[in-house]
């Protein structure tokens, strides 16, 4: 019990030591115990390993291989016979003077802007709500359950509702903005054209902030109350307590949270797909849907794979740089 209360790194050591004692205490011969002890963990991991291999790792390697082949609809039945094409697929994907490359680059920039805004807003709203709800007040429990509804709703049900709200003629958004408040001179289109970016962002933030809220709330529970009491005795106001205690204590939580939010948002397929279908408007052409469309609508798997590999490389670089920057001088044992 004492070992679990220490830091994760130390707990790892403690576990190994603790594990040895019962075997010795049992006084059985050491060799069979050793073999069992060595074999058993692998046996326990086997199902998970097989699945991870079949569904994640092998397809990933295959995806990389496919990106070097000319894999069009003619070779789907027997993809091994598709001719090798070297870096051709990549050249097509990054030829920014040609339409395919241009569209990919555009989609990439849209996704970056969308992700930065969405993650920023989700984090800010989630953190603010968690901090406001750190102290008990009447109705806090109900409010907390209510705030988690967007997270709990199935994506398609939630997004379809938003699609209905964004309808041009019979939607709530135009009804409020145009008919009731008179902000716009005529009803706007939200699901096509430039506005679709803001519509997508709204839905994404609505859907995503409760996760930030949940994680920050969990992180806040680990801040000892005594720290606030001591700070209050020293005359620190609420704002100072927030800046000097709450936010610094949340740093490790935020490090993981922002990364996870970033990866989820950047790779998000469900929201744009349910919102716009197979052909997203240019302003909201997120990269996942773009690649999906390039592959399944045109049946050009080679180029689609090359785009996926480029996306993967980008995410790896960003994650690496992010972890290096945020964990300088801190052990990232659990990331």
């Amino acid at each position, binding site marked *: 019990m004492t070992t*679990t209360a220490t830091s994760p790194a130390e707990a790892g050591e403690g576990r190994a030591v603790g594990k040895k004692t019962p075997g010795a205490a049992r006084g059985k011969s050491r060799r069979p115990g050793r073999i069992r002890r060595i074999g058993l963990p692998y046996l326990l991991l086997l199902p998970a390993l097989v699945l991870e291999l079949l569904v994640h790792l092998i397809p990933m390697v295959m995806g990389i291989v496919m990106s070097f082949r000319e894999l069009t609809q003619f070779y789907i039945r027997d993809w091994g016979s598709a001719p090798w094409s070297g870096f051709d697929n990549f050249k097509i994907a990054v030829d920014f003077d040609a339409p395919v490359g241009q569209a990919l680059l555009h989609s990439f920039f849209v996704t970056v802007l969308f992700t930065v805004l969405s993650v920023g807003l989700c984090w800010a709203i989630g953190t603010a709500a968690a901090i406001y709800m750190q102290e008990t007040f009447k109705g806090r429990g109900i409010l907390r359950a209510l705030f988690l509804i967007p997270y709990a709703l199935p994506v398609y049900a939630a997004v379809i509702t938003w699609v209905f709200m964004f309808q041009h003629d019979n939607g709530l958004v135009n009804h409020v903005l145009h008919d009731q408040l008179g902000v716009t001179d005529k009803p706007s289109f939200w699901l096509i054209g430039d506005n679709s970016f803001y519509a997508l962002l709204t839905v994404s933030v609505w859907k995503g902030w409760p996760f930030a809220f949940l994680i920050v709330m969990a992180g806040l529970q680990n801040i000892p109350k005594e720290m606030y009491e001591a700070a209050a005795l020293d005359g620190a106001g609420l704002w100072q307590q927030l800046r000097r205690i709450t936010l610094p204590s949340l740093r490790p939580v935020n490090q993981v949270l922002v990364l996870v939010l970033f990866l989820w948002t950047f790779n998000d397929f469900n929201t744009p797909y349910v919102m716009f279908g197979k052909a997203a408007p240019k302003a909201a052409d997120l990269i996942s849907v773009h690649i999906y469309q390039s592959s399944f609508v045109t049946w050009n798997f080679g180029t689609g794979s090359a785009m*996926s590999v480029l996306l993967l490389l980008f995410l790896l670089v960003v994650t690496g740089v992010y972890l290096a920057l945020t964990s300088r001088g801190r052990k990232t044992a659990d990331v």
Partner: protein
Amino acid sequence: MSDTTVRHRSPMAAPRSFVWSRRIFLTLLAGFVLLPVFVMVSSSLKPLQDVQGEFRWIPSGLTIRPYVDIWSTVPLAKYFTNSVIVAGAATVCSVIIAVFAAYAVSRYRFRGKRVFTVTVLSTQMLPGILFLLPLFLIYVNIGNATGIALFGSRGGLILTYMTFTLPFSIWMLIGYFESVPRDLDEAALVDGCGPLGALFRIIVPAAIPGIVAVAVYSFMTAWGEVLFASVMTNETTRTLSVGLGAYANLNDVYWNQIMAASLVVSVPVVAGFLLLQRYLVTGLTAGAVK
């Protein structure tokens, strides 16, 4: 919900300005969160002309017709059954496999442990679109070679979903298992329980909240996934996530029925989640926030 488990901040009364800003912020936020929920519920009870014309805050009349009609406009019951089977089977399998893996990682020291945890976790960051194409081909080719229909079948989807939720489930369960005192299962081992006996008699019962949290997470993920469902199902195996889109493709869009159907498919997961959210929050504290 569980106010007693939460450590409260300063015992002093908060200043008035803080209370007011909190009131305003949380009210606005609640409005933002509830707006679609309100639209969903109210529109699902409206007659058709209400949802085809200009939006109305207050329905001209209430009707339960949409709830009757949804079952015949598209084969919703079939989609529903498919989703229940797929999400249910994926959840059960994924939880069992994750329990074994987490037990190995939390209680044993073995070569490659760190490689395993890092690899499994890092699959979480990979874009789903990257596996979609190869997995599609793998399933098609396995089908051609062995006759086991993975592509277009529920089995293929179950296999895919259970793997998707594995990394996060294992991660969360490791956190949970670590919080179960080691002395307990070691005592069981001394008393002659096998390793599996110790796992199922001692650790699993003690970690039930974590297992519930993982099960809820797996079910929600499988219930809501769209990308793989859209490619890997056919007319007979279609799940709700794709099937619900069928309404929008009809010549006349019956928004009241779509809202009714959305509500019907949401109720099981939202109710389950809200009932069990306490476990999920503690699960995240144990697993994710270390």
